């Protein structure tokens, strides 16, 4: 099992979700996050006061998949979230020791 954490542009969420859904992936967790990488922030001006806002809004998708589904899922995310411009985000892949479905007590691949 692997966990995929993808940071993407907010407006790409629907496309990424649909692409993952077509692969048969049935669940994911999404959060609104702020952060920055190479993409610069922006400047806000209120009358005479200027503030640089470094942290930009992004979406973080978290999902855990069986090892066999990993490659397809990552490819789908990278393909659909890509605009080719700076600020597209990143995908991280982490190993997962186990998973448990609380309702049925199922574990491992059956639980994801």
């Amino acid at each position, binding site marked *: 099992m692997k966990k995929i954490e993808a940071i993407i542009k907010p407006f790409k969420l629907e496309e990424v979700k649909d692409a993952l859904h077509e692969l048969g992936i049935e669940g994911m967790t999404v959060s609104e996050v702020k952060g920055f990488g190479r993409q610069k922030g922006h400047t*806000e*001006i*209120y*009358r*005479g*006061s200027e*503030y640089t806002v470094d942290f930009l809004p992004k979406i973080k998708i978290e999902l855990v998949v069986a090892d066999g589904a990993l490659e397809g899922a990552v490819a789908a995310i990278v393909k659909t979230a890509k605009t080719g411009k700076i600020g597209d985000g990143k995908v991280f892949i982490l190993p997962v020791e186990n998973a448990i479905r609380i309702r049925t007590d199922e574990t491992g691949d059956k639980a994801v």
Partner: protein
Amino acid sequence: MIKTPTSKVRLLAAIASLAMLGAVTSTLHADTNAPAAAAPAAAAPAAAPTPYPANTNAFSSASLTNQVAFLEAAHSNSDPTPTGITYESDPGHNAWMMVSAAFVLMMTLPGLALFYGGLVRSKNILSIIAMCFGITALVSLLWWAFGYSLVFGTNFTPSTGPTPLGYIFGGTEFFFFKGITSVPNNNYAFWVSQNVYAIFQLTFAIITPALIFGATAERMKFSAVMAFVLGWMFIVYFPLAHMVWGATGYMNGVWNAAAKIPAIDFAGGTVVHMSSGWTALILCLILGKRVGHGKEPMPPHSLVLTFIGTALLWVGWYGFNAGSAVAADVVAANAFTTTTLATAIGALTWPLLEWIFKGKPSVLGFCSGAVAGLVVITPACGFVNTTGAVIIGVVAGVVPFIMCTVVKNIFKYDDALDTFGVHGIGGTCGALLTGILVDPTVNGNLQAVSAGTPANAAMQNGLITAITNHTLVVAQAQAAGITIALAVVGTLILGFLVKLVIGLRPSVEAEHQGLDITDHGEEGYNH
């Protein structure tokens, strides 16, 4: 944990004793004077209503010529005294003035509260609302007890001629609203009930001190705000309002034949905006900067609230400016028109400058330009024509913009919400521009009366000569200078006095947490 309960008990006791004093004074007055005078404020509800005017049949017993002349006087907002008909107020003029008074109250609650409230950080929104509400309540009490009389009374000026005291304060005859009824006070309006006029003027006395605390936002204790206002009304507002608008005022060019400075201020460029704006500058210097100013971001927490507040201010300002004609007449109509134009042009100019120099036109720029336009047209609205209004709109968009974006950053004072930049400087521009752009054809009070009739105040005090010779701006500059001096000196004395007695600022920790919790024990937003 109750802090200093005794001082609060004492405050309540003071208010209660003030109210009792008022009741006693009114009752005494009713006992010792003709019953046709005022209905006492504390009269028992079962008492029969006192009929007024004294002779209600005057109209029907008058000649047809006098009846027509009387109605014509109401129609044209002129003096009906020559017709010999005893009269009450006119329903049309009264209706407009009651609407105007309500509009100006709306400028403070909720207009200014939202305008300022949106500009502070979310932890201080309630401190702004509490301050606006607290000032409204406190000033209403002061106005009833002493304020209206000190501003619009005249008994400090004996019949033998003006005195220094009478130039600066009005009198004592209206203390506790004594004698203020629905009958007009001819010193100020022929057709508007004096009680309506008193409440209309109260709403000006409310918004003026409330404006000050934009400069001191987010770092002045509520108790210090209230204590400062209590003193400031007596030291700055009441004398200034009397000097400019009182019938015996030192620089009331329109109404006082004995005015030493024949200056004109239609709706409060000096009284309201300069006084609050220059006070704001001195007070924010005495206070010092907010903790973290210049180091951490302090962006407005809701420009949506600021926008709504701005829109309410604009609408309410029709009561402020057009209402200052104290009649639904041709002068009000002119003020209504010039106010609209100057505001719109200000709201065009400010964001345009932002677009050119900063890259983007901002919503705060639209709001700031509109408020600046309203401020600068205020003293001029009943005295200039539409061309003058457009010029004023442009100046309003340029000068306060430079103050708020360039000058403030050079001198690094923390005028948090730009009260000085917009009201202090805008008001000063307005006072001076009124002297330059004045057009006597829009306002009969600026014109000489025809030969054979008694000379009006403007002929006697030199106002008309000044307008004819294009030297009115000198009188305007003198009035502006007196206003600045009074505001600066009064604020220096009061600011340090309040600082010494109860302190001006909350603790650094309290300021960091936000005044909503530390001063009021509640939060504006609970998610």
